[in-house]
Structures are given as structure tokens and as C-alpha cells.
């Protein structure tokens, strides 16, 4: 049986890594604004809070900001700048994961996630992560928590992007074309996007977030 998990706010309370990554980007670029100014809260947002669309709108419409960002990355191509901003944030987020103490990283994980993973592995389940976050950030946190080897596949934003650079985010089932195997369950925290994604991939959906006891999830699955 193949069980796939969403990452952000499902198996890990990971928003803080993304936010602190962005805070460091703003500090590095000396933009003089806060993250809430550039990526403001949107109710009923049906995409990542730091999607490329939002990055372009937030960072790359104000000419003063564009000048600073262009000077830093030595380019005026907005699509390229959005990717460079994301790449900078990615590196800071990963650095944030590795620089904190282990106990803080472990506290990020969902309730009883580690024993649940252990039980799933013992029962022969194959475990995947399918997320719109960067694969490198996800892998870094799992490695930090000594869980990386438990997962056969980590599929992130990189795998959702085609050769022309177009991103096919959930609920688009694009990513399944690149996967060897078909997932039986998809576990996610978003009752709309993750549920639709599961349906599009012909998998059963389980609603769960980082406050869910994952031993209960295991008991449902076995």
C-alpha cells in the first residue's frame, strides 16, 4: 500500500520555516518592508501563500522594489527574478532547519508522527510525500528528524514543474505522470485542494493536520 502525505501543516507545522526564510530574504535585500506587506493574508487562498504569482505581485510590481531586487540579482527578467527570490528563500529556509536544535525540529512534526511512520514501515507500507513545497526543504527537515530514509519518494514543486518552467500545482494530477506507482491514500490538511487532488489521482483522501494524532491515522489504514 502506498500512502502519500502532504507536507506543510499536515505532517509538519512548517509555515515558520517558510516565513523565517522570507524574513531573511527581506533583510538580505534591505527592502524595508515586512512579509505581511509583500505577501498579505488572503482569506480562502487556494494556493501556497508564497506562490510565484503572489511573489510577482508582491515583490515585482513596485518599481522601487524591482530596482533593488534587479540590482541584487543582476537581471530585469521578472520570471527569473521570482525564481531567484524563491531560490534565496529556499536556501534560508533550509539553513533555518539545520541551525535550530533537534528538539525544536521534532516539535514541528505532527502528533505521534514518528511512531506512526515506524508502524507503517513495519506493516510494509510505502510512504511518499507529495507537496507543492520545495523537495529540498522537505528533505532537509525529514533528514534532521532522522525520517528521510523512511520515505521512498519526496515529490515537491520541482517535480510539479515541466521542462518549460510551468508549474502544475495540486489539485492538478500532473505529477502522477512522473511517479512510478499509484498512491492508495493521500493525507492532507486542505479539505478542498488536497481532497480534489486525491480524487484526481484516484486515491482515497484522509483529512489530517499537524494536530491530528497520526497513530489514529495508522489505525484507520491498517
Amino acid at each position, binding site marked *: 500500500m502506498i500512502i502519500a502525505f502532504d507536507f506543510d501543516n499536515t505532517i509538519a507545522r512548517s509555515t515558520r520555516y517558510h516565513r523565517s526564510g522570507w524574513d531573511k530574504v527581506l533583510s538580505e535585500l534591505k527592502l524595508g518592508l515586512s512579509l505581511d506587506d509583500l505577501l498579505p493574508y488572503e482569506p480562502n487562498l487556494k494556493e501556497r501563500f508564497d506562490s510565484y504569482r503572489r511573489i510577482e505581485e508582491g515583490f515585482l510590481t513596485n518599481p522601487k522594489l524591482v530596482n533593488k531586487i534587479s540590482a541584487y540579482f543582476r537581471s530585469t527578467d521578472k520570471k527569473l527574478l521570482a525564481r531567484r527570490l524563491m531560490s534565496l528563500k529556499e*536556501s534560508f529556509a533550509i539553513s533555518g532547519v539545520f541551525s535550530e536544535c533537534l528538539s525544536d525540529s521534532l516539535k514541528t512534526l505532527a502528533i505521534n508522527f514518528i511512531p506512526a511512520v515506524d508502524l507503517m514501515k513495519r506493516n510494509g507500507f510505502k510512504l511518499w510525500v507529495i507537496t507543492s513545497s520545495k523537495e529540498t526543504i522537505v528533505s532537509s527537515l525529514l533528514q534532521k528528524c532522522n525520517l528521510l530514509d523512511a520515505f521512498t519518494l519526496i515529490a515537491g514543486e520541482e517535480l510539479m514543474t515541466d521542462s518549460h518552467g510551468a508549474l502544475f500545482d495540486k489539485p492538478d494530477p500532473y505529477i502522477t505522470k512522473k511517479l512510478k506507482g499509484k498512491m492508495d491514500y493521500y493525507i492532507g490538511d486542505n479539505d478542498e485542494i488536497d481532497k480534489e487532488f486525491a480524487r484526481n489521482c484516484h486515491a482515497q483522501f484522509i483529512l489530517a493536520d499537524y494536530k491530528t494524532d497520526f497513530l489514529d491515522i495508522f489505525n484507520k489504514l491498517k
Partner: protein
Amino acid sequence: MLDIIHKRYKLSLSSNKKMKNLKGHKVNIPNSVIEKCWDIYSKRYRQVELNLKSPSTKTNQNLHSTGAYQITEKQAQSLTEDKIFKYYLKNKNGLLIKLKSKYLLRGKNYFPGYSKENYSAKSKIIFSRLIEMLELAGNLNKNTNLILYLSLLDYIKNYLLICLYAINLLIREFKIEHEIISKHDYLCFIKLIQLIEDIYVTSCLEETPHLAPELSNFTGLISRIEKFIGHYGQLLTRNERLSLDLFRKIRECNNPERLMSFADMVSNSYFSINSLIISLEYGGIELPFMVNALRNYKGKNMVRGLTVNLSSYSTKNSDFVQSLDDIVNPFTLPVFSDDLRSIVILDDSVTTGRTLERLVGMLPDSISTINFAAVSFTNTNRFHHLTRKKHGGINPYIVEGSLFAYRSNFVSTYTKSSYTNKNGVFDKEKYKIIKLLKGL
């Protein structure tokens, strides 16, 4: 004129790439993450590698693929009256390698660390040659052949750098009981290295020997350095590992064209007035001097530079080296002034980034900017090396934001249990040199 010089030596008139600040970024990504995300990391490494020159790129016909200057037999026939060539011929067994139709101007004496003799015999070769060569260099006339002059300077700076490494090692590891070498002598020695680099760069770029009669005045200093090293003879005989490593075998990163190209690139970068260059011994030992020589040539200010070694024989494990004070020559202390804000780290190459990470971890919080540049980089053919336990790979964000000149000479790996290829080779250029030396 300068345009021609720049074209000939492929010097860049301006640098398109700016070094990014690596402060706050994880330098070494663990091996299991590299392995899991290899598709992603290898693509990013490849993008950088594609913009680097091949290590076999050569514009100077008088340069052998091992980095030695060379002259053909035909050229040699017209140089019989040249003082330098006469000196080489008189000592041809040590100073030259004769191939079919040419002479390589780096003989076995260029690599004294490679011989099987003890450190005392090696020391004798180094210092006797160094004194001879400084005297010779200080007594040349303007008709001296340029290639021979450059090769003589190449020999001199090689010996000086070998000695610098040895002095730094001894002063770090052993207490200096007597004032056989003073701080003044050490700083003079550093100035001599810089002087040789300056003369070398000027001669190279202006394609004419830039003579320096004052060089023969340094032989007294060299004798004092020799005495200093000899003073530690008894301690060295008790410490086999240290005595074997005192004079290193082969210095990576001693190809004149690559060094020049790299130093030119770095010297074009902006250095704030409160900057320090730190380079990693042994491969990077020449880099601060060469960068400053290019800066000097271009009329820019010199930047304070020092070399560090993260290996410690006293503790026998570089993991225990925690303070920068332990890895620098005490004569260069204090390393950090109150107004120091920016550091540029230089090395010959980078693969895992562990050494770089260790060094960055030792820098004080007051440093706000850390940049990195290395002569060469290739990681896409080192999968087994990077995914080996406790190894990992350098963060591609740092690679993308650093300066590199060439792809590296390192072979493709085939197994996690070895750094070499199936034939036991790690560094292709080093292998060629060893083959040449074995043939002698």
C-alpha cells in the same frame, strides 16, 4: 596595448558576476539530502559548471598541460647564452624534465616533498635552490628570455610557498622557544612572496621581464628561515606525521594560466575597505598573493590576506579545531580588527563544502559579509563522493553566488568507498605530474 594584453591573457575587463553573501546559509548539505534530491542538485551544479572553462583550456603555447613552462629544443638552441638556461642545464637532473622535443621547466627539485628522503635532505634542496635562484634573479640583464624568467619566478615562489606552509605549521604546532625567527622576519618573508608575485604578474602581462636586482638581498632572510626550520629537527624526528607533511608533495592549483585567470576575476570584484582575504592551505596558499598582485597591477588597494589550515597535528583531528586563533600563524594575530566586516574566502576547489562550513563557523558574528571564490568546481561527476556518509555537497545557492574560473581536474567517481576512478586516479593533472616524476 592593454586591450591586446587583456585579449591575449583572456583577462576580463569587467566581471559580470557578483559574489553573493553566504552568511546565514547552510554551506554543507548532508549526504542523504543530496542523494534524495540528486536530480535537483545535479541540475543546479551543472548550470554553474557549463559556464566554467575546461581545465585543459590553454592559450599559452609555452605552458605544458601539467602547468610547467616549457621550451622546444629549437628554442633552447638559441638560449645557450641565457644565464637562466645555463643554470638549468648545469642542474638539469633536478631542474628540468627532458621530453622528446622539449624541456619542461619544472624538474624533480620543483617537488621536493615528493622525494623519499627525510625532511632534512628535502630542506637542503629547497633552501640551496632558493638562495641560488634569488641570487640569479637579482643579477639578470634585460636580454633575459621571458619564458625562462617566468619559470625562474615560478620556481622561487613555489619554494617560498612550500616554506610558508612549513613555517606556519611549525609555529602553530610548537612553542617558539627562541627568537630564531622574529615577527619582523616573518612579515618580511610575506612581503618577499608578494614581491615575487608582483614581478611575475607584471612580467606576464607586459610580456617583458620585469627585473628586480633587490631579490639577491633576501638571501640572508632565507638563511634565517632555514635555521628556524632546522631548529625543530629533534621535535620533527619524534613526530613522524608532522615531519612527512612539513614539505607538501604537490600543490594543487599551481597552473600559472589558471591562477592568473582566477586572480583576475577575483581582483575585479568590489572589496570594501574593511575586508580580509582568508585562503585555505595548502591548495589555496598562493591565492591571496596572486589576487593582490593583480589588484596592485590595476592600481587598486591591497587587501590584507592570510592563510589558514584546518588540520591540527596537535589535536590530530580537525573536528576539534574551534577557534580561528588555532589555525593561523600566531604572528598574524589578532586576525580581526574591530572594524572588520567583510571576509572573502579563497580556495583551490570545493566539493562537499565541509571545510568552508567549518571555517565560516569560526568567524565572529560581527562579520556581516562572507564571500567565496575557488579556482575550480565540478560536482556533477562526484555523486558517490557527495553521498558518502558524513560527506554531503556544497549548497548550490552558495555555488551559484560564488566565483569559479574552471571546471575541476577531478575524475568521475564510481563507488562510495573510494574518491578515485577505477584506475586509482583522483586528480588528473596531479596524476600526470606523478607519472612524469616516476619516469625520472
